């Protein structure tokens, strides 16, 4: 593995930040209820960025893509946790949304009671304590790592281009 191939940090950081930010900003974050689509997309993006600067290989680099996906997931989990704190404060702490008005509006929309409770819970936010943030971070680390890894592997399966001719690239000139 040469230097260019081993340089996974930059694509992982970019894709992780993008996935983490998208997963924290409502209503974009709602896409994650589709089987963590944004995080899977983050893993896919990381592979796309990484393969651009990586020489072609005869076989898809699934192992390297898995490591890249894990890194992307870790960066994404930290980014999502950090970004979600001010967003939760904005929604729940500043009281700019009148919950009674919201409740009336939701009741008027003929939604099932479970949906009303879910939307109210989402808007009002949970208790924002250090403990809750840390537990959220641990959950995010596990979930993001798994799903970004799967996204990266799907990415390499789709985006990998085989080395033409099967020959190794010429060695750099000596001297």
């Amino acid at each position, binding site marked *: 593995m040469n230097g260019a191939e081993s340089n996974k940090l930059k694509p992982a950081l970019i894709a992780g930040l993008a996935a983490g930010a998208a997963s924290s900003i409502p209503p974009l974050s709602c896409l994650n209820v589709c*089987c*963590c689509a944004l995080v899977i997309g983050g893993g896919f993006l990381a592979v796309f960025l990484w393969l651009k600067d990586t020489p072609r290989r005869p076989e898809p680099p699934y*192992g390297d893509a898995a490591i890249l996906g894990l890194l992307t997931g870790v960066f994404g989990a930290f980014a999502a946790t950090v970004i979600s704190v001010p967003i939760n404060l904005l929604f729940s702490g500043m009281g700019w949304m009148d919950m009674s008005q919201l409740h009336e509006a939701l009741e008027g929309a003929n939604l099932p009671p479970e949906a009303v409770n879910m939307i109210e819970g989402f808007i009002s936010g949970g208790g924002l304590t250090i403990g809750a943030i840390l537990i959220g971070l641990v*959950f995010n680390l596990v979930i993001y790592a798994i799903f970004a890894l799967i996204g990266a592997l*799907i990415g390499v*399966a789709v985006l990998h281009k085989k080395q033409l001719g099967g020959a190794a690239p010429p060695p750099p000139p000596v001297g």
Partner: protein
Amino acid sequence: MRLERNLPYWLLVGASFAWVGLVFLAPWARSRGWPGAELLYAVFDPVCHQMPWRSFAAFGQPLGACHRCTGLYTGFTLGLLALPYLPKLRGFLLERSRMILLFFVPLAVDAMLLGINTYLSRFLTGLVAAFPVGLFVWAAASQLYRPNLPTVSEGTT
């Protein structure tokens, strides 16, 4: 690419079963008033809407994940178990890995039919979509476990 049912493979199978098991453990725990039940539901909260009317029920409680996610997790596990016995499909998928996208087409179509799809269509399309994904996780685990192993064109078990 040479794939073997070695330690990483069996660890993957174990982890997949554990993940699917958590989906069923959550309603069981809630039905018995177990204090950790809500924590189990919380595991799937970031990745699934967990709407009770779009989830299977067991023990009088909704599963930890919706119809489609349950299908995806089950399909992943089934794929891991079945693909070692399907060498032609395995070889085809490894040789033409972009074909994995075809498995996602039914899911995408079903997801767009928001008002028409049923619990069965959501479950089955999820199952089909995730079926081949385990193969690539297995391939990654094999490469990481023995990265310098000489490779052959077709997989063997």
